[in-house]
C-alpha cells in the first residue's frame, strides 16, 4: 500500500532577465525564485491498483514519482510504501519497485538486450530460477524473442519500450512506475504495451502508477485517475468524473485544465 500524506516540496530556481547586461550583473548577484513543485499532496493507493497520474508539464508529476521511488526527499509530509519510507530506506524500498522512464533508457546501448538483463539479474540479486521464469514469461508476453539478441541501439522505439518494460519487471517488483511509457510509439506498439500492462496487473497484482499525456492510455488502463496541477491534487476519481458527460477524453481534460487554470 502507498500512503502519501501532506507532502510538500519547494525548489529554488535562479532567474535572470534576458540580455548581456543582466547576465553580467548575475555574476555577482543572483536572484532566486521559490517554485512550489508539490503543495500538501495526499493520496492512498491500494495493492494491485492501477492509477493514472495526469497533469500538464511542470505540474509536479515527476517530482511525485521521484519521491515515491526514493530519489527525492520532500520538505514536509510523510510517505509509507509497504511500511517503508522510500527515501530513508531507499535500498530496501527500491528492491520492490520497477521504474520505466519513458524517455530514458536503462538498457546498454551497444550490447544485446539479454546482456543488460543478465546484469540486472546480478544487480537485483535475482535467484536464477526466478530470473529464468520471469524472463521466459516476459519474452513470451511481450514477444521479445529475436530482440533479446539485438543491441539496443538497433531497436525501434516500440521494440525498445517493450524491452524496457521487461527489464523493469525481471525482479518481480510489487509496484511499477511507468513514466510516459507510450510516448512516441506507433499504434501497434501502443496497443501491445497497453495490453501487456493490463494483463500483468491482473495476473501478478502489481500496483501500477502511470503518468501519461495520452488519454487513450488512461481510458484503456486505469479506472482511477489523479489529476495534479500547480503542485496540488485537483481531482482524485474515476474516468467518469473526468468525462463529466463529455464524449471525448481529450476535450474533457482540456475543459478541466481550463477550469483549474493550469
Amino acid at each position, binding site marked *: 500500500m502507498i500512503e502519501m500524506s501532506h507532502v510538500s516540496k519547494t525548489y529554488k530556481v535562479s532567474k535572470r532577465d534576458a540580455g548581456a547586461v543582466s547576465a553580467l550583473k548575475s555574476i555577482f548577484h543572483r536572484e532566486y525564485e521559490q517554485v512550489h513543485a508539490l503543495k500538501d499532496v495526499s493520496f492512498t493507493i491500494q495493492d494491485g491498483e492501477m492509477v493514472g497520474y495526469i497533469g500538464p508539464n511542470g505540474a509536479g508529476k515527476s517530482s511525485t514519482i521521484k519521491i515515491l*521511488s*526514493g*530519489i*527525492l526527499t520532500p520538505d514536509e509530509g510523510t510517505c509509507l510504501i509497504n511500511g517503508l519510507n522510500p527515501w530513508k530506506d531507499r535500498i530496501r524500498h*527500491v528492491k520492490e519497485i520497477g521504474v520505466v522512464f519513458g524517455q530514458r533508457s536503462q538498457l546498454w546501448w551497444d*550490447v544485446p538486450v539479454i546482456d*543488460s538483463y543478465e546484469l540486472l539479474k*546480478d544487480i537485483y540479486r535475482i535467484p536464477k530460477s526466478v530470473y529464468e521464469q520471469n524472463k521466459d514469461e516476459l519474452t513470451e508476453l511481450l514477444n521479445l524473442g529475436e530482440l533479446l539478441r539485438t543491441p539496443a541501439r538497433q531497436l525501434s522505439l516500440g521494440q525498445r519500450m517493450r524491452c524496457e518494460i521487461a527489464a523493469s519487471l525481471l525482479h518481480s517488483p510489487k509496484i511499477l512506475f511507468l513514466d510516459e511509457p507510450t510516448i512516441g510509439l506507433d499504434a501497434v506498439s501502443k496497443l501491445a504495451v497497453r495490453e501487456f500492462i493490463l494483463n500483468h496487473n491482473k495476473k501478478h497484482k502489481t500496483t501500477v502508477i502511470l503518468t501519461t499525456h495520452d488519454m487513450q492510455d488512461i481510458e484503456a488502463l486505469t479506472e482511477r485517475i489523479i489529476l495534479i496541477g500547480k503542485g496540488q491534487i485537483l481531482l482524485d476519481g474515476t474516468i467518469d468524473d473526468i468525462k463529466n458527460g463529455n464524449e471525448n477524453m481529450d476535450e474533457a481534460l482540456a475543459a478541466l485544465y481550463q477550469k483549474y487554470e493550469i
Partner: protein
Amino acid sequence: MWNSLQLYAHYFKIQFHSAMEYKTSFILTCIGQFLVSFNVFLGVFFMFKRFHNVSGYTYSEVMLCFGITLMEFSIAESVARGFDTFPSMIANGVFDHIMVRPRNEILQVLGQKIEFTRIGRILQAVVMFSYGIMKSGVQWSLAKVGTVLFMLLGGAALFCGIFLIYAAICFFTLEGLEIMNILTDGAREYGKYPVNIYGKKVLFICTFFVPYALIQYYPLLYLLDKGAWWYTLLPAGGFLFLLPCYGLWRLGLSHYKSVGS
C-alpha cells in the same frame, strides 16, 4: 564484498563488449591517448636535451618518476572514469536509474564507464618506467620493488579520491568544474617531475593538503637512496585521503536527494 566484486566484473564484461563494437574507434582512441601523454614526454625529452639535469635529478630519474605517476593516474582513470563522466550521468538521468536500484551508488557509477582506451597511456607509462629502471642505476631490492607497488596502489587510490571529489561537487553544481583539472590533469602533467622542483611552497601543499608528495616525491627519494626508510610507508596517505572524499560524496548525495536535478 565478494558480491560487489562479481557485479563489477559483470560491468567490466559488458563494457568490454561495448568497446569492441567500435574497434576502429577504440584503436584510434588508444593511439590518441598515447599521443597526448607522448607530448608530455617529448617536452621533458627536449628540455633535458638542453639542460641535462633539474634540481639534481637526471633524465632517467625523472623518467622513473614520470612513469610511476603516469601509471598511477592511468590506473585510476581506467577504473574511476565513471566519476569523470558523472555530470552527464546526472544530466541525462542515468543517475536516477542508479538511484532506483538496490545497490551501492558508487559501485554502479564506476561500472557505468570503464575506460579501456587508457591502455594507450598505461603502455607508455610502462615504457618510460622500464627505461627509468634500467638507466637510473637504482639498486633493486625486495623492499624497493615493494615500495614501487605500494606507490602504484596508493597513487591510484589518491587519484580515485580526487575523481570522487569531482563527482561529489557535481551534486551541487550539476556541471563539472574545470578547477578540478588542476588536481587531476594538472597532477598528471606536473607530476612528471618530482614535486620539490616546483619549490618549497608547492611541496608543502602537496604534503599536507593534497598528498601527491606522499605517493611520488618521498618514496622516490627512498628508491634513489636519498631518503629515510620510512618514506616507503607514506603512500598509505593515498588511502587515508579516500575518507574525506567519501564524506564529501555522502554530503553531495544527500543534497541531490533534497534538491533533485
